[in-house]
Structures are given as structure tokens and as C-alpha cells.
């Protein structure tokens, strides 16, 4: 990644953090200051979704081209997705403690992200269980495609078809964005910043995988 981009990302996310925590926000239902979780919790969930979809894409590319590097890329993206999914779960659970009175309520959103964590946990269990590199790449690429197909269902569909205490998604059932303009700007900037952070992390992990690959050959 270009030096300019890295320092730009640092400044961008620093500004996002400052606005997200210190800028005044309008009253959002009964949430008060707790509504600020939106700026961090939703972007982590978003990045995990992007990372899982990218793992699907790399898995499919491995199946097409049989280049082992794509398998490493899929694993790198899935690992980042798992980390961000855990971050989204933890931040959501802390928010739930103060808003709903308990860390865990088996709310549809909590249940769906929990299932996703299990699905991708199983992906790494599968990878560690197969010794042959080629066999592992084949099996885990097919698994990452199948797992990736379930992601939109667990993230976008399931929580919308079951009654939930979770606040309305940004684009809600009426199909409209209902958010204060200033909050929306900070929120979208945070989404962009977190996506940039994911891109940089993925870039680092892929470069490490390339070096490992070079050394093993």
C-alpha cells in the first residue's frame, strides 16, 4: 500500500474517532450516548461481511485457476472476517448489557452472527485437519464458497424475517435511510475507514503468505 494511503487512512480514522465520540448527537430513541456504538459496531459487522464475501471470491478463483496463492488469500480474508465478526459480537454484547439488561439474549442478530462465527471457525478446523496442501486448498475453497453463500442470508435476510429487539438496520423495511445528516456523514466515513483498514490488513496477510510460499518452494 502506498505511503500516502497509509497516513491518509490514519488521519481519516482519527478524525472519524474524534467526531464519533466527541461530536454532539441528536436523541436517538431512548439510547442517548449509547447510539454512538453505531459508528464502530456496524462497520466491524460490515467488514466481516465484505471479508467473508472476498473469501468466497478467492475460493472460486482457486477452483478456476488452481493457483495456491488464491487459497492463501481466501484463508487470509476469512481470518480477518472472523476477527471482525468477533469484534462486532463483543461490541454488540456490551451495548446490549446497557440497553437490554443482558450481554446475550439470543436476539436474531446475535444468533445469526454466532452461527457465522461457528461456520468460519469450522473452516479453519477443516484447514488444520488436512495435511496435503492441494487437498486442503480444494476442500477449503469449496467450503468457503458454500459458507460465503450463507453470509447474505445470515446478515441481511434472517434478522429481517424474525422479530428482533435490534434497532432498525440503516436501510430499514421501508427502504429509506432514517438518520440525522451529521450522523450519517460520520457513519459513512467510518464505514469507508474500516473498509480501508481491512484492505491494508488483507494486503499485509497476503504478502506474508507470498513470502511463506516462496520459502516453502
Amino acid at each position, binding site marked *: 500500500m502506498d505511503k500516502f494511503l497509509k497516513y491518509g487512512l*490514519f488521519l481519516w*480514522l482519527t478524525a472519524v*474517532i*474524534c467526531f464519533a*465520540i466527541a461530536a454532539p448527537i441528536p436523541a436517538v430513541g431512548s439510547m442517548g450516548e449509547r447510539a454512538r456504538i453505531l459508528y464502530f459496531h456496524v462497520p466491524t459487522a460490515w467488514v466481516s461481511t465484505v471479508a467473508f464475501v472476498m473469501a468466497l471470491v478467492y475460493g472460486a478463483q482457486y477452483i478456476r485457476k488452481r493457483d495456491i496463492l488464491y487459497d492463501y488469500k481466501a484463508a487470509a480474508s476469512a481470518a480477518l472476517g472472523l476477527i471482525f465478526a468477533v469484534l462486532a459480537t463483543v461490541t454488540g454484547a456490551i451495548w446490549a448489557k446497557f440497553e437490554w439488561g443482558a450481554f446475550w439474549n439470543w436476539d436474531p442478530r446475535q444468533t445469526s452472527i454466532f452461527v457465522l462465527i461457528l461456520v468460519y471457525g469450522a473452516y479453519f478446523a477443516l484447514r488444520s485437519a488436512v495435511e496435503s496442501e492441494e487437498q486442503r486448498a480444494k476442500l477449503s475453497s469449496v467450503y468457503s464458497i458454500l459458507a460465503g453463500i450463507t453470509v447474505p442470508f445470515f446478515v441481511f435476510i434472517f434478522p429481517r424475517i424474525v422479530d428482533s429487539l435490534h434497532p432498525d438496520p440503516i436501510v430499514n423495511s421501508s427502504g429509506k435511510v432514517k438518520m440525522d445528516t451529521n450522523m450519517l456523514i460520520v457513519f459513512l466515513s467510518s464505514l469507508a475507514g474500516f473498509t480501508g483498514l481491512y484492505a*491494508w*490488513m488483507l494486503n*499485509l496477510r497476503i*504478502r506474508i503468505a507470498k*513470502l511463506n510460499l516462496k520459502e516453502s518452494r
Partner: protein
Amino acid sequence: MDFLTQNQNFVVLGVTLILWLGVFLYMLSLDKKLKNIEKE
């Protein structure tokens, strides 16, 4: 002390910025190390 209890958001802001700076510096150093190994 009174300032901090009345402005808890700034305490959170300080802690979050320190954490972010730590993550950024770690990633930057990792990037530099990788660049050096790639050059070899």
C-alpha cells in the same frame, strides 16, 4: 478530576485514540519489516 467525571466522552476518546495509534504503529512496523524481507 471534576472535568473528567463531567466529560467522560473525552476519557473514552483518549483511550480509543491511544488504541488506534497502537494498532496503526504496529501495522506500519509490520509493513516496513515485510518490505525489507521482500527486498532481500
